[in-house]
């Protein structure tokens, strides 16, 4: 059972969360019109076998969107932070 350390609620089963995919990409500016930029953001992935930065929303908890560090090769879970606090460097 993947256990996700919600910064607000504490460690919980992943079933309380909703997956939001790759969080390593920066979303283009709202008024960006460049198709390639949005294409790469929406459709292209690094999909690493190893450390992965990803979005999860604690939908059955505090409803906050988190950025979680997880290793896709082992499912080892690292730290999580609130997405609203910005992505860690």
């Amino acid at each position, binding site marked *: 059972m993947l256990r996700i350390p919600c910064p607000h609620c504490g460690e919980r089963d*992943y079933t309380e969360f909703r997956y939001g995919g*790759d969080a390593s990409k920066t979303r283009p500016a709202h008024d960006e019109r460049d198709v390639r930029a949005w294409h790469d953001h929406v*459709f*292209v*992935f*690094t999909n690493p076998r190893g450390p992965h930065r990803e979005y999860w929303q604690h939908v059955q908890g505090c409803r906050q969107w988190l950025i979680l560090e*997880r290793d*896709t090769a082992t499912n080892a879970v690292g730290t999580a932070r609130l997405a609203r606090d910005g992505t860690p460097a």
Partner: protein
Amino acid sequence: MTERYSALALARHALTGARWPRAWRRADPKPHYDVVIIGGGGHGLATAYYLAKNHRVTRVAVLERAVIGSGNVGRNTTLVRSNYLLDGNTQFFEHSLRLWEGLSHELNFNVMLSQRGQIVLAHGPSQLDVLARKGNVMRLNGIDAELLDRGEVERLLPYLDFSERARFPIHGGLLQRRAGTVRHDAVAWGYARAASELGVDIIEHCEVTGFLREGDRVIGVETSRGRIGADRTAISVAGHTSQVAALAGLRVPVESHLLQAFVTEPIKPFVDHVISFGAELFYISQSDKGGLVFGGHIDGFNSYTQRGQFPKVQTVAECAVALIPSISRLRLLRHWAGIQDMTPDGSPFIGRTPLRDLYLNGGWCYQGFKATPAAGWCFAHTIAHAEAHPLIEHFSLERFLDGNGYDEYGLGNWTYRQ
């Protein structure tokens, strides 16, 4: 030299006690090939076979990191069908099903295609309309399809939950009689044996570690067993597409997810069709050995671990009992997970890449196994002619750039929701 398989051959060996030859030659890498195929799974081996058979390209090597067939071709739920909606998908998967229908004879290897029929259930009027649209398209393309109302489903599958207790009552369904199952491992072995017979080198325990480049042209691969030159190189490693593509500096619209499969203890014939639940993604069939085989939805987050999450096991069990209450008493024997390429529209990529002489076949989502023969057939054609086979033109890597996404199920642009 491979020996032809037949009842007679079996009898001869039984009487003389003569030993059987290897099904496929053990081969060591040569310095150069016309085509090097990375990945000894169903698709890679099928591609090699059709390159040799249809295009007389026989200086071909299949490079496999472990042993052949150790990936998804041996981990899937063995379904084959051609009930597809979108122009392009319909023809491609029907081509595949027709190849399945001749495969045992083509390969002289019994892959046990069992056309027992698949029923997709609808649990409401609008869901049945969606199935009707698909069924109509199938019929308009010469593919068998039958629309069933609740009564017809009940006559065919009386053991489904038609009681008052059913949370999502069965409203009807779509039947494709020619759909069914195949003995999955046999597909890899059969293609390997036939390809080897035609001169293809199948090289196991040979991991690709890099690509040999000449400008924007790929001229071979670095492997754990040395450099291998190639006029054309093809990637066919679904599950690890991103990793291998990355060795060539490519980023692709693929994320790797886990799909679990489940099998119960063997029992006498219990379910004679392939049945797909309509309320959630769940399907069931019974293997010839007697085990009930279940499939469900991906676990839902990127992973390469090849082990599933327990709550998903429970979800699948809930669906099984919701569909067939008497399954409750049967016992789950094993569950395992495969690594699946997921794409933003649920459709694959197969064809050329931005790099010259490098070809890619991946992103099959839930459909890799049933696509095996057609994917091999079309990929081989594409490699041989350096031009996409008409059946796969729409599966291009760039399709999202011009807006030609190919969303068969209308699930939107999320790999993890397909």
